[in-house]
Every structure is written in structure tokens, then in C-alpha cells.
């Protein structure tokens, strides 16, 4: 009955702009239970806070955990707003010619994967839809596994891909900035072979690639050092290569000084990734909403932000009430 109510013509329009419940979620009944519990929990924290009583650290932890868990289980999806800084990357790839080469550097580890892996997948899908050739590399030892995961994720959509002709993986080299400094002018010096020991010259797609600027576009996706900043310093600055980036949320604000002069676009955290997924869906409808990893994250992300902001607001109300009481007693 509740399900019918939720989906009824009266209530549906009320909720649909706010969020939609994804098929993988536990369904509307659970959603309602979750929202009731959420409101009750937040109400309790509010009551304790304005009364000036201590809310234990572990209670906040529990509430945070339940909030995100509930949102994951209900599978809510929220509308995403596009921004120019992400659109620039999409448009650059969109305007490349068939057969152009793109260098994708995945410089992150599993801790960055939830927000950065969707970017790598979406950019790869976009490049392959445009029939561009992708060369994967990484500056992080853990990046090799990330590249393997991305390739596994995109292969089913492009069964006709041929290794060495449509894409290749040169893998990892230790050396951080030193690697970038060298490949800016001589790609083969650092990467004489690909990840499995095949000489780069024997890969058809790498013909004519001697240095980074030979790639029509570089997309560096990274979560720390070495990462996007180092790409700008050691590749873009000296060689003038065209670059876009995907940054982990933590490092994204620090990279704004390089936009738009040194990198023409940037995806920041899961929001940036979800924007790219949205653009990809619009351009290529076969990428349905519910296959978009970052878009799935954005629902729980928003609920967690609501919770966090409520905590901040409660804490400040309590602070001002306490100040007022103190002022009155003095």
C-alpha cells in the first residue's frame, strides 16, 4: 500500500524531482522506514544539542554510518548539475578526430578508486565511442590494478577492440616526477615496452608517438603526489601538451590555479565524475543511468551532506543559545 502511495500520481511528482529510487535498491517500503529513522535520529541529536547535553562521538559515528548505509540501500539517485570546467574535457574529446591518440594516466590507489575509477571508465568509454586510441599509464604502483579494472569494465561494451591497435597499457614506472620529465620529450626512454614486455614499436597505435605532445589529449586522473600537479609542472609546462584532469575531491580545490591556462578542464571528485557520466549519457544514450557508478554515489553523498550540515547547524544553534544564556546570567 505504501509502495502504491509512493508511486501514485499524487505523490510521485512530489518526490520525483527530489530523487528517484533505483531498481537495485531495497524498494520504497525500506525507503520510507529509512527516512523515518533518519528524521527521528536527527531530531534526537537536535534535542540533545539544544538542551546543551553531550552527544557521544560514537553516536555521531553510528548516525553517519546509518545515514550513508540507508541511502546506499535505498539506492536514491539525484539530478546532477553540469559545470563548464567538466564540460571542457567532454567537448575536447568530442571534437577530436577518429584515430587520434589519448593518453590516460591513472595515478591513484584503491582509496581514490570510488571517485576516480568512474571518471577513468567514463572517459575511456567516451574515447572509444569516438574511435580514439587510448594509451594507459600510471605513476603509482597501485595504478596497474586500477588500469586492469578499467579495461575489464569497458571491454564488454567494445568486444571488437584490438590490443595494440585501439588501446594499450604501458603500466607503471617508479620515479615520480622523473618519469614525467622524461616522457615529456621521450616516451620510449621510460616505456620501452608495454606492461607485458611487448616492445612499444611493435604496437601499431604507438607509431608516431615519441613524446607526450604527440598525444592529442592527455587526461591525468590522480589523487595525490605524483599526480595532476606534477603533470602540469613536468609535462604541460615544458612541452605545451593539451591536458584535462580528474582530481580526487581532497586535492581538487588546490588545482584551480592551473585552470584554464595549464589544463583546460577538471573533474573534481565524484561530483565531477557524475557530471561527465551525465554528459556521456546524453551524447550516447546506451549508457543508461543505472550503470553510472559516480551517479549512484551522488545520492548517498547528498544525504550524508544533509546530515553533516544539520550537525553543523545544530552545533551553532547550541553555541549561540549557550552564549545567550551566559550573557543573560552575567
Amino acid at each position, binding site marked *: 500500500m505504501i509502495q502504491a502511495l509512493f508511486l501514485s500520481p499524487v505523490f510521485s511528482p512530489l518526490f520525483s524531482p527530489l530523487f528517484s529510487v533505483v*531498481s*537495485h*535498491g*531495497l524498494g520504497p517500503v525500506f525507503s520510507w522506514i529509512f527516512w523515518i529513522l533518519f528524521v527521528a535520529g536527527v531530531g534526537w541529536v537536535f534535542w540533545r544539542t539544544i538542551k546543551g547535553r553531550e552527544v557521544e562521538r*560514537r553516536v555521531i*559515528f553510528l548516525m553517519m*554510518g546509518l545515514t*550513508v*548505509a540507508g*541511502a*546506499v*540501500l535505498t*539506492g536514491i539517485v539525484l539530478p546532477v548539475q553540469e559545470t*563548464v570546467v567538466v564540460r571542457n574535457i567532454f567537448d575536447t574529446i568530442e571534437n577530436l578526430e577518429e584515430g587520434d591518440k589519448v593518453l590516460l594516466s591513472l595515478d591513484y590507489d584503491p*582509496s581514490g*578508486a*570510488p*571517485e576516480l575509477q568512474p571518471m577513468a571508465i567514463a572517459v575511456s568509454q567516451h574515447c572509444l565511442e569516438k574511435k580514439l586510441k587510448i594509451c594507459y599509464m600510471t605513476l603509482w*604502483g*597501485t595504478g596497474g590494478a586500477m588500469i586492469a579494472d578499467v579495461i575489464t569494465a569497458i571491454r564488454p561494451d567494445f568486444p571488437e577492440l584490438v590490443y595494440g591497435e585501439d588501446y594499450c597499457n604501458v*603500466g*607503471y*614506472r*617508479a*620515479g615520480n*616526477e*622523473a618519469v614525467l*620529465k622524461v616522457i615529456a620529450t621521450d616516451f620510449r626512454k*621510460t616505456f*620501452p*615496452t608495454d606492461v607485458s*614486455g*611487448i*616492445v612499444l614499436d611493435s604496437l601499431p597505435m604507438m607509431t608516431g608517438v615519441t613524446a607526450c605532445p604527440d598525444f592529442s589529449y592527455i587526461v591525468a586522473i590522480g589523487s595525490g603526489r605524483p599526480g595532476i600537479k606534477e603533470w*602540469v*609542472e*613536468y609535462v*604541460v*609546462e*615544458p612541452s605545451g601538451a593539451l591536458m584535462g584532469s580528474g582530481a*580526487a*575531491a*581532497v586535492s*581538487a*580545490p*588546490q588545482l584551480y*590555479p592551473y585552470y584554464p*591556462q*595549464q589544463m583546460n578542464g577538471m573533474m*573534481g*571528485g*565524484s*561530483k565531477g565524475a557524475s557530471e561527465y557520466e551525465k554528459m556521456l549519457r546524453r551524447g550516447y544514450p546506451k549508457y543508461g543511468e543505472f550503470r553510472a557508478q559516480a551517479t*549512484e*554515489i551522488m545520492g*548517498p*553523498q547528498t544525504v*550524508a*551532506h544533509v546530515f*553533516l550540515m544539520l550537525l553543523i547547524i545544530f552545533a551553532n544553534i547550541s553555541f549561540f543559545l549557550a552564549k545567550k544564556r551566559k550573557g543573560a546570567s552575567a
Partner: protein
Amino acid sequence: MNRKVMIPIASIIVFIGFLLLKFDFEAVDSSQALWDAFIVTAGGFLTLMIFSFLYRDNPFYKFAEHLYVGVSAAYWMCVGFWSNIVQQAIPHLSPWLSEALDQPFLGYKWDYWIPIAFGLLLLTRLLPDSLKIGWLSKWTLAFIVASTAGLLMTANLKANFISQISSTMSLPLLPDWTGFGDFVSNFDLSYGGQFIKMLSNWVIVVGVISGLVYFFFSKEHTGWFGRVSRLGIWVLMVTFGASFGYTVMGRVSLLVGRLTFLFRDWAGIIS
């Protein structure tokens, strides 16, 4: 039976229970199915072990933490060895070694012996003190420090200093005057008109200068200098606020990733 014995035994029993739940009894290759069940169960348990730290530090957390230290150190070592020594250096050092390690021989390059020699010098630290040659490792250290310093200096000077100054100073502080109507036409902050663009450019230039003044500690922050530095800290506070907002997004993304793993891959509650 005391708790120290009970808890590990109970944990092993629960682990085996989950393992059996995940085990595909109809699989043709049962050893593969057992391994698949084991890795998913282990992944879930390790995730929960780390989460248990939220309650308090405990043996489960310590177990996962220590396992992580060992595995990650070895992982980096192995990946580095195969990538940089085997794939990068060996193909230029010896045809015999290249063949033994399944690598194509790409021709001799004598200079690759230099880093190998420096590397071996670094390892002299491991030799017994009685040999008194451990100090040779400092030669390698000197090389690494010197090359890194030289590399960082030039790149930082270009990308983080000169380029940033030129990007700031090239901003037009006055509009291309095409009439008052155009000047005040569009107040949308995203695609603003001339006035908004001019205002933004002024904020950037003043923000950069005042921010630099705040970091300049050779002069006391009093008088006009103090006021400019005060403005600098205000601009810095806005950016720290923005960074906080972004950090929240990043950390919640990770949490969502882990919980999705727990609910979908491990517990199988959602599809």
C-alpha cells in the same frame, strides 16, 4: 574458557559460516569456487575489522592493520622491481638476463650500469658495521637528493611561480568599454558580463597579493601591512572552507564505495 580464546574461535566460526554461505555448491571446479568464496568473505571481514576501530582500538583492527603493512610493502617492492628493474633496465643490460626474465633485449646501454652501481652502494648499509663501508650509501643518497633538488627547483619555478604570476598579471582589470549598458548587463556569476568579470579579476589580483603578504613574515604585520595581511587571511579562510567541503565529498565517496561493496558484493542484499 576466557575471552582471549573465545573471541578468535567465535570469529573463525563466523568466518567459516559466511564462507559456506558464499560457496557455490554447484560449481564444477570446487577448489576455484572455494577460493572465490574465501576472497569475498575475507574482503568483507577485513572491511568490518577496520570499521571496528570506530568503536575503539581492538585486536581485529590491529590484525588488519599489521596485515596491510606487510602486504603493501611487498606489493610496492614487487611492482617496482618488475617495472623498473626487469622491464626498464634489464633489456639494456644483458641478453641472457632478458631472456631469462621473458623480456626483449633492446640493445646495450652502458649508462644503465650507473644506477645499478649506485643502488648497490645504497645496499652497503645492510652490511655488518665491522666492514665499515656503510657510509658509501651516502653517495647514492647524495645523487638522489641532488637530482631531485635540481628537478624540483626548475619545475616549481616555472609552473608554480613564473606561470602563476603571469596568469595573475595578464588578467584585464578594466573592461573593454562598449557602453554602460553592456557593463552592467549580466550579473550571473557563472557567465557574468563585463562588471562581474572585472570584479572577479580584481578579487583574484587583490587576493593573490594579500595572500602573499600574509605569508611574508620578515615584516611585522602592523599598520597598512597588517590590514592587507588580514585581508589575505580572510581570502585563505574562504578557500579552507571550500577545501573542507570538497574533503567531505571525497571521504563520503569512499564510505559509499565500501558500503556498496559490503551490501552488494559481500552480503548480496542489493543487486
